[in-house]
């Protein structure tokens, strides 16, 4: 458990905001993952890391993962078809990563 100490103001502010953001995202994590990446892609990819942010969803897998490129291609195709959003693909060390911008909706 993180405790509030007598640190500086930024620390308090950020802890509070981070907690709020994390709680908000955790409630929606499952739906966001399934609606952006898709259950099938997650099953087929095997080893991967996936993080849901308030602006983007981040998906990374090893560059050695032979299935990565064909699965990423399907994820990109579906994401563009459904949301028309922007996808970025890039290498990061031994990993290949995708960033998919969370769709914005009119309020």
């Amino acid at each position: 458990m993180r405790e509030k100490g007598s640190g500086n103001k930024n620390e308090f502010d950020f802890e509070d905001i981070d907690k709020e953001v994390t709680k908000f995202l955790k409630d929606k994590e499952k739906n966001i993952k399934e609606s952006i990446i898709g259950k099938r892609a997650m099953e087929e990819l095997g080893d991967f890391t996936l993080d849901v942010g308030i602006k983007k969803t981040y998906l990374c897998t090893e560059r050695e993962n032979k299935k990565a490129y064909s699965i990423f291609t399907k994820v990109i195709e579906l994401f563009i078809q459904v949301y028309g959003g922007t996808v970025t693909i890039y290498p990061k060390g031994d990993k290949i990563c995708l960033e998919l911008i969370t769709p914005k909706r009119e309020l």
Partner: protein
Amino acid sequence: MPNEKILIVEDEKITAMGLKNKLEKLGYKVTGLASSGTEALAKIAENPPDLVLMDIVLKDDMDGIEAAKKIREELDVPIIYLTAYADDEMIKRAALTEPYGYILKPFKIRELKANIELALYKQRSEKEEIIDFEDIYRDVTRFLKEKEESIKRALIADDAVSYSSNITLDVGINKIYISTPIGERSSYDTIHSVLRNIALNFFDKYGGKIVVYPKGDDVCLELTKPEIKE
């Protein structure tokens, strides 16, 4: 029901023509007949079908399984094999291409139709798997609008706030993501300031793992968050 487009890959002309007639009677549209894997790939590129019926033994260097593999790598088209061969090795090779069916010749037309319909249904449901959760994304948009400035203010040191307009920030469940254009003069000052702020304020709790990497025209910084026990 039908009007779905089907490509037949079969090197026996008479068999191919017979199959074409049967499919058309069932209401499907046959986009073409290909007698080799190479011809199949060309026809698919020219007029993408909804499904491919693929013979395995073809008069070509590339057999049906190899052609199917190439098709699946490039396009999301379901493939059903039609073949007279069912030895273990062949089935094993065919299975790797994730076919939507494997029908042994001779087959009944009802069997073919059932396989085609199931394959098309499966393909549709897989495509529809990605559902746009309008309400969720509306909530996220609202939340982001309300909190974005506070997140920036909380994470970036006071002396960097003045030039923070070129910083992109995102907070995820597991990590915090910061990026800034690599070509701008202030970018490294920004990164330096953010790193210093993190080091001074968050290192003891945030475990200290920071990854910095280039991404196109941006330099990015990722800070792994600690697991928080509620």
